[in-house]
């Protein structure tokens, strides 16, 4: 709203009213006017509106001054263009005239003259009023204008204010924005810190699980321990990435390590407690919690070994009392009977004791293996070891523990076992039983070695005991040997068979060999019989010496007693005792060598005897001793040779040729025939040599073939062979 717009307003208001009253632009368009005219001509002025208009007009003039009427009439005349208005006015006037014809003719004429002026006056008056009114309005508008201007100023001011304040608040907004982003950052950091804390610290529950005595060892505890371990590992990794150890890293390490220590401490206390409870039963089993606890505690070997010390203690006591129970009290209501009930039967007594120990070890071993989580795990990988099989300690830590614990668990059994075994061993009078006991002990020694290792106390104890028992046995048989050596032969006994002490000794040896043969020892590894040779030496050497020595002694008193045959008989007998057992082959060979020596002596003796019996001894001796230059006939004249050959012929007819009465005393017929045969061969060879010498021309025998041909075998060596019943050997070989 601007001030200059004030003046046009009244003119514009005036103008339309004037146009409406007097249509000025009518001639421009003919047609609409015609239409309009027709319409007006057709108009009935009796309608209400027209009537009312006329009424109003009449009222105006009823009280109107004549001036105004003339004015309006003048005005009508001055406007000829407005035919319609004119005719309208005319019509109106005519009506009014018609109504007020009687007295108002004057008025009417005045009206016709002054209508226009009246109307203009009226209009001017109205305009005046308008002007007045509008001036008021103008006044008011001016005020309004002022107000608006004031408002405008105020608004501008406000805007400035706003701008200022907005400028002022910008920094605040920026601040808020930065604060918000800062808060976001802080939130992120907070969540990171929380995550970090979650990852690198133990929650209250977890630390409680580790430290509190109230919470039992179980999955929750192990979980917490796991976490602590993991934290340490992660932390370590992080710290290696840094330039150096950070404080938080060090703190975390410190706190987790303290938790872990407490945890291990707790496991240790728990294990110790559990282990102390494990004394009651011989058979044990291990729960998964225990197994896990042990595997964890193996991180702290010193704690583990302390805890295991308790276990060892309880197991030692438990096994010892169980062993003593089995020894003295037996099973429930005395069945199975106590082991000591059979103390009179050393084999059974010792066997039962050792078997008990072996079985206890097997159970203990299973227990320990499951404690360390061994055994069950091996199932898939490799075949399960049986207790009898060789145990291989592969050097893993757990296996080391198992071995050590097993060793110490049975340690306390060693003393009662050793005492009882030694008692039993020492009280044995029979060397057979001693030998059986020693064998049994050796078997168990090997078994235990395989089961619990060579250096376990039980193994060493057993090997000690075994040694002792072998010593006892060897002492016994050595004493027996010495006793044998002191035995003298009955000088009046003409027999050449082995004497009774030898027979008894041989019987003992036979029994020992039987025991060895059915020995429980696994001999497949070593040379069969290797370990038995010493026994054979100890048993046989004195016996053989005794035969020879005693025979020598006897011969001194009874020279005609056939010592050689006797010794051979004894030795052959001893050898025959060994024959049934394969593992004695070595000893048999050495005996055979000795026998062969003796046989050669006997052969020489027998050969001489035969030569003497056959009267050829001197002749053969002369032939063998003569010098080549001397003719034999000078040393041995034909007259002397002839009777010798006759006596030889006579001897050939005697039964001694095929059967020697002396050798028949030999217990071995084959030895008899062998020796005799060898001697006969030598005789035949000697005869052959005799014939050869006689036939030689340089020996200057007259009618040599006649001399030889007089008596059997007529100088024919082949005949002699036939007589001896021997196959003739090659001629070449007969020539000595």
């Amino acid at each position, binding site marked *: 709203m601007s001030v200059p717009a004030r003046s046009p307003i009244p003119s514009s208001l005036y103008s339309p009213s004037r146009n409406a009253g007097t249509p000025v632009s009518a001639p421009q368009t003919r047609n609409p006017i015609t239409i309009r005219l027709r319409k007006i001509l057709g108009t009935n002025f009796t309608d209400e509106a027209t009537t009312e208009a006329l009424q109003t007009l009449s009222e105006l003039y009823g009280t109107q001054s004549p001036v105004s009427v003339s004015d309006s009439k003048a005005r009508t005349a001055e406007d000829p263009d407005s035919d319609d208005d004119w005719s309208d006015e005319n019509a109106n006037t005519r009506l009014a005239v018609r109504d007020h014809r009687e007295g108002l003719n004057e008025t009417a004429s005045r009206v016709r003259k002054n209508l226009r002026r009246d109307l203009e006056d009226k209009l001017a008056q109205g305009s005046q009023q308008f002007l007045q009114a509008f001036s008021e309005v103008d006044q008011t508008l001016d005020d309004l204008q002022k107000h608006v201007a004031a408002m405008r100023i105020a608004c501008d001011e406000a805007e400035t204010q706003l701008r200022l304040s907005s400028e002022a608040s910008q920094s605040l907004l920026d601040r808020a924005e930065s604060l918000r982003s800062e808060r976001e950052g802080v939130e992120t950091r907070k969540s990171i810190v929380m995550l970090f804390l979650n990852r690198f610290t133990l929650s209250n529950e977890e630390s409680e699980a580790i430290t509190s005595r109230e919470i039992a060892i179980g999955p929750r505890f192990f979980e917490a321990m796991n976490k602590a371990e993991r934290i340490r590992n992660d932390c370590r990794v992080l710290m290696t990435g840094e330039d150096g150890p950070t404080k938080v890293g060090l703190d975390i390490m410190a706190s987790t390590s303290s938790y872990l220590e407490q945890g291990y401490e707790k496991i240790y206390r728990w294990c110790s407690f559990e282990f102390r409870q494990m004394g009651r039963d011989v058979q044990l*089993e291990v729960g998964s919690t225990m197994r896990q606890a042990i595997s964890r505690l193996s991180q702290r070997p010193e704690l583990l070994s302390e805890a295991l010390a308790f276990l060892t203690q309880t197991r030692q006591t438990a096994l010892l009392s169980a062993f003593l129970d*089995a020894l003295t009290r037996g*099973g429930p209501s005395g069945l*199975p009977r106590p082991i000591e009930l059979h103390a009179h039967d050393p084999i059974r007594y010792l066997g*039962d004791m050792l078997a008990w120990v072996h079985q206890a070890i097997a159970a203990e071993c*299973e227990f320990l293996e499951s404690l360390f989580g061994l055994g069950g795990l091996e199932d898939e990988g490799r075949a399960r070891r049986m207790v009898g099989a060789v145990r291989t300690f592969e050097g893993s830590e757990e296996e080391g523990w198992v071995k050590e614990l097993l060793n110490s668990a049975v340690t306390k059994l060693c003393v009662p076992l050793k005492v009882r075994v030694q008692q039993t061993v020492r009280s044995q009078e029979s060397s057979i039983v001693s030998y059986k006991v020693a064998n*049994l002990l050796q078997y168990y020694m090997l078994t235990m070695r395989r089961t619990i290792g060579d250096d376990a106390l039980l193994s060493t104890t057993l090997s000690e005991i075994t040694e002792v028992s072998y010593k006892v046995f060897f002492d016994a048989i050595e004493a027996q040997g010495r006793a044998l050596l002191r035995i003298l032969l009955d000088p009046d006994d003409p027999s050449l068979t082995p004497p009774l002490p030898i027979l008894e000794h041989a019987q003992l040896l036979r029994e020992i060999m039987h025991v060895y*043969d059915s020995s*429980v020892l696994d001999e497949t590894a070593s040379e069969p019989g290797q370990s038995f040779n010493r026994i054979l030496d100890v048993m046989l050497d004195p016996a053989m010496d005794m035969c020879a020595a005693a025979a020598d002694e006897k011969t001194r008193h009874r020279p005609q007693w056939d010592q050689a045959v006797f010794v051979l008989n004894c030795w052959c007998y001893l050898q025959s005792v060994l024959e049934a057992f394969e593992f004695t082959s070595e000893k048999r060979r050495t005996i055979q060598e000795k026998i062969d020596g003796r046989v050669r002596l006997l052969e020489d003796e027998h050969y001489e005897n035969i030569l003497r019996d056959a009267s050829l001894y001197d002749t053969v001796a002369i032939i063998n001793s003569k010098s080549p230059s001397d003719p034999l006939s000078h040393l041995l004249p034909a007259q002397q040779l002839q009777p010798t050959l006759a006596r030889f012929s006579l001897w050939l007819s005697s039964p001694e040729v095929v059967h020697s009465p002396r050798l028949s005393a030999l217990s071995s017929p084959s030895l008899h025939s062998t020796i005799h045969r060898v001697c006969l061969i030598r005789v035949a060879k000697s005869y052959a040599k005799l014939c050869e010498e006689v036939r030689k021309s340089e020996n200057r025998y007259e009618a040599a073939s006649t001399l030889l041909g007089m008596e059997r075998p007529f100088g024919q060596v082949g005949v002699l062979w036939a007589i001896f019943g021997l196959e003739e050997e090659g001629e070449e070989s007969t020539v000595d």
Partner: protein
Amino acid sequence: MALDEYDIDATELLETYDFLMKYIIIGEAGTGKSCLLHHFTHNAFKDHSQHTIGVEFSSRTVKLGEKRIKLQLWDTAGQERFRSVTRSYYRGAAGVILVYDITNRDSFLNMSQWLTDARALASPHLVAVLVGNKSDREDDREVEWAEASRWAAENDVHFLEASSLTGDNIEAPFLLAARSILLSIESGILDPEKAGSGVSYGDRALRRVTSSSHLSFGSLSGARRRRPDKLRLKGWVPSGKCC
């Protein structure tokens, strides 16, 4: 006589158990004791088996009904020369598996001696199971099933035939003995709490005993009642025995 009739689950090892039982396996040399045991513990035939030296030990946990039973098995040498050693292991055995070779009549004829020995030396309530091994070699059979079954009935032992080669019936003798022993415990003849009985409680059973003070065998007996037709005990159980 299939094994699965027992509903066994023998895959687990070294777990907690209710009972621990000690068995001995005896019989003449070469009847396949070690192979039988090997098949039982390893589920495979043992090739090139040598004569056992002395005794060997192995163990296995089996499940019978709801009871888990750990078996400690002592395999003995059959050869005469080990007799003095092996006899010491009879002490306190709860069960004995007598093994003979169906293709070797002598190994069966000696069973009486083995049984007498075992009864004399082991626990008084010894449960015996006679096993005719090598049932896969039907062609060489020298001991008739009926004859062995009769002998078993006369001597109050369980009987069955098995093959350690094919694994046929391999677990049945062990389970049969275990079941008999459990029944003995149930009826109060055997007391696992006493040493030398060859049976002892495992951790599981102990826990149960302490918590309820009454040992229930309902599952075992119940299972048998429910499925009487499934357990074809044809001749396994001699007359007068449980069942």
